[in-house]
C-alpha cells in the first residue's frame, strides 16, 4: 500500500513540477475536444430536436384512409396487429361525422357543428388526456370547447336528424364533456367520441338503428365493415414502409410518408456528415493526444530509468505515465466540457427558437459528456500505455549515465 501511495504521489508531484507543460497539454486537449463536443451537441440539438418535434406531433405518424369505402373489420384487425402499427381506430363515413351540439340546459341556445372523431384508449391524438369511456362521453377539441364556452363536466345535447320516405326524424343525444383535448390534438371544433357512438349515429342516419327509449343511452350494433380508418405507426421510421405496404394491399391512404422519408434522409445524411467530421476530428485528436503523451514519456525517460535503477518494479514504472495521462485527460476533458457548455449557451441564446420553441440548438447531453471523457481517457491511456510499454524494457543504466 505504501509503495502504491508512493507511486501515485510521485506521479502527481512530477505533474506539478512540470505544471506549465501539463497545463499546455491540458489546454491542447481542451482546444481540440471542445469543438467536437459542440459538434455533437449541435447534432443532438438540431437533428434530434427535429426528430423529437416530429415525434411529439402524432400526426406525423398518422396514416388514414383516403376515401370512404367498405373496409372489413377483419382486415382492419389484421392491420392493427401489425408490429409497425401502434394504434388503429375505424372511422365512419365522412358525411356522418357532422353533429350539431348545444348546451343541454339551453334548448333554445345556439348550436355548434362539431366533427365527430372516433377514438379508443391509447389514441396518440389525445395523449395523456382522459379518453371517452361511456357511449355518451366526449372529449372536446380546444376549439370546440372555446366555441361552446364549456369546461369538463358540462352537459351537452347532440342533435341527429334523418329523413325517411314518411317523415323527417330528429334525435337528441345527451353528451357529457369528459375532458378538453390539448390544442395540438385537433385544430377545428371537434368531439372525440367512442366508436360505438359514432357508428350508432351513422347507423341511425342510415335508418338501420332505432332511437333509444327515452332516458336510455343508444345501443350500438356490431359492425362487419367500416367506412375508413385512422392509424399511427409505432416509429417515425415505420411510416414510409407502412404507407407502401397498405398501398400494396390496394388501400388508398393519406400520410406524411414523403415528408418523413425526406426527414429521415436528411437525418441520415446529416448524421453521416457529422459522424465523418467528428470522426476526423476525434482521430486527429487521438493522434495529437498520443503524440503529446508519447513525447512526454520520452522526455521523462531518464528520470524513469533512474527510478528503475533505484529498484522500482516494471509494473509501477509503467503505471507512472499512465496515471499522469489519466489525470491530464480528466483535466483536459473537464475544461473542454466547461468550454463546450459555455459555447452551447451562447449558441442557444443567439439562435433561440431556430429549431422550435423551448428547444435548444446545441444540447450537450450527459451521454455526450461521458463519451467525451471516456474517449479522452481511453485515448490517453492507450497512448501512454504504448509509450510506457517501452519503459518496461528500459535498461536501468540509462538512468545513471544520462545527465539529468
Amino acid at each position, binding site marked *: 500500500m*505504501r*509503495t502504491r501511495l*508512493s507511486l501515485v504521489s*510521485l506521479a502527481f*508531484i*512530477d505533474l*506539478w*513540477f*512540470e505544471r506549465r507543460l501539463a497545463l499546455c497539454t491540458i489546454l491542447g486537449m481542451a482546444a481540440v475536444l471542445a469543438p467536437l463536443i459542440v459538434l455533437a451537441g449541435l447534432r443532438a440539438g438540431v437533428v434530434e430536436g427535429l426528430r423529437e418535434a416530429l415525434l411529439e406531433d402524432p400526426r406525423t405518424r398518422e396514416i388514414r384512409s383516403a376515401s370512404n369505402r367498405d373496409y372489413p373489420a377483419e382486415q382492419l384487425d389484421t392491420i392493427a396487429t401489425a408490429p409497425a402499427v401502434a394504434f388503429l381506430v375505424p372511422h365512419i363515413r365522412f358525411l356522418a361525422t357532422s353533429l350539431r351540439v348545444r348546451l343541454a340546459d339551453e334548448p333554445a341556445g345556439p348550436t355548434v357543428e362539431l366533427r365527430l372523431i372516433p377514438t379508443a384508449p391509447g389514441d396518440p391524438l389525445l395523449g395523456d388526456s382522459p379518453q371517452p369511456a361511456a357511449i355518451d362521453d366526449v372529449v372536446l377539441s380546444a376549439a370546440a370547447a372555446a366555441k361552446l364556452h364549456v369546461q369538463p363536466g358540462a352537459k351537452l345535447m347532440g342533435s341527429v336528424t334523418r329523413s325517411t320516405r314518411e317523415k323527417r326524424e330528429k334525435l337528441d343525444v345527451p353528451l357529457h364533456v369528459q375532458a378538453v383535448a390539448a390544442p395540438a390534438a385537433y385544430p377545428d371544433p371537434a368531439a372525440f367520441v367512442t366508436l360505438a357512438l359514432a357508428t350508432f349515429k351513422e347507423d341511425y342516419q342510415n335508418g338501420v338503428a332505432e332511437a333509444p327509449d327515452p332516458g336510455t343511452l343508444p345501443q350500438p350494433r356490431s359492425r362487419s365493415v367500416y367506412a375508413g380508418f385512422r392509424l399511427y405507426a409505432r416509429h417515425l421510421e415505420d411510416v414510409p414502409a407502412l404507407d407502401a405496404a397498405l398501398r400494396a394491399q390496394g388501400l388508398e391512404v393519406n400520410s406524411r410518408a414523403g415528408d418523413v422519408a425526406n426527414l429521415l434522409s436528411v437525418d441520415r445524411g446529416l448524421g453521416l456528415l457529422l459522424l465523418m467530421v467528428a470522426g476526423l476530428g476525434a482521430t486527429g485528436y487521438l493522434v495529437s493526444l498520443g503524440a503529446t503523451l508519447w513525447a512526454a514519456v520520452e522526455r521523462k525517460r531518464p*528520470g524513469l530509468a*533512474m*527510478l*528503475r*535503477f*533505484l*529498484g*522500482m*518494479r*516494471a509494473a509501477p514504472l509503467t503505471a507512472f505515465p499512465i496515471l499522469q495521462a489519466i489525470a491530464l485527460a480528466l483535466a483536459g476533458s473537464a475544461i473542454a466540457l466547461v468550454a463546450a457548455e459555455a459555447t452551447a449557451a451562447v449558441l442557444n441564446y443567439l439562435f433561440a427558437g431556430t429549431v422550435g420553441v423551448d428547444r435548444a440548438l446545441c444540447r450537450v447531453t450527459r451521454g455526450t459528456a461521458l463519451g467525451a471523457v471516456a474517449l479522452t481517457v481511453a485515448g490517453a491511456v492507450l497512448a501512454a500505455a504504448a509509450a510506457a510499454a517501452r519503459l518496461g524494457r528500459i*535498461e*536501468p*543504466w540509462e*538512468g*545513471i*549515465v544520462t*545527465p*539529468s
Partner: protein
Amino acid sequence: MTCRDQPTLSARGVRRVLGRGSDSFEVVIEELDLPAFARVAIVGPSGSGKSTALALLALAMRPDSARVLRLNPPGDSPVDAGALWLARRYDSLAAVRARMLGFVPQVGGLLPFLTLRANIALTQKLARRAVPGRIQELVEALEIAQVLDRLPAEVSVGQRQRAAVARALAHAPPIILADEPTAAVHPAQAHTIMSLLAHAAAHSGAALLVATHDIRLAESAGLAIAPINAAGLRGTVGWLPA
C-alpha cells in the same frame, strides 16, 4: 575466513560489447572480488570502460555473458545476479539493486521533481528499509541540511552531488558504487566529496567501489587502486589490497 575476507561482490568473466561494427568494443571484468568494508577505486583513462564496468557491477547493464556475478553481503542471502539476468528476472534484479546497492552517478542523477529530502528518502522507500535518524545524520555530515527542501535545480552542483551521496547511503546498502562522483564539481570540492563518500561508506560498514580517472584523488581519500587495464579495448579489474 573472517567477515572482512568474504567477497561481498564477485565477478568473473563478465562481458558486454558496446557499439556496432568497427566501432564496437568489449568491456570485460575478468576477475573481481570486493570484500566487505573494502574501499577501492577503479582507475583508468577516459574510454577505458570504467563506467560500463561499474554499470555491469551495479546490475544496471545486462552482460552479454557472465561466468560469475554474485552478491554476498554480510547478514543477507547471497544472490546469483548472473542467473537472474539469464532468467530475465528484471524485477528481482531491481529488488536486489534497491536492497543491496547504493550508486552515485557522475552528475547526481537526482529526480528533478523531488526535493533533496525526497530524493534522499527515495532509496529507503524503494528498499523498504527505513533507518531512523540515518538521513539526518548523513545530511549533517554532508553539510546539506539547510537545503533539503529545495529542488535539485535550486542548489549548486556540489550540493547535488552530496545529496546523491546521501541517497546512495540512506538505505544502508552493503555495497556502494560511484561513477566519477567528482567529475562535475569544482576541483576544490572534489576532495571533500570523495573523502565524505569514503568516510560515510566506512562509517556505515559498506564496501565502496569508485570509478575515477584521478588516481591522486582516490589515493588522497584512502582508496585502494584497481587499474583498469585498457590494453586495446579490453579491461581487467582486479582487487588490490590497500
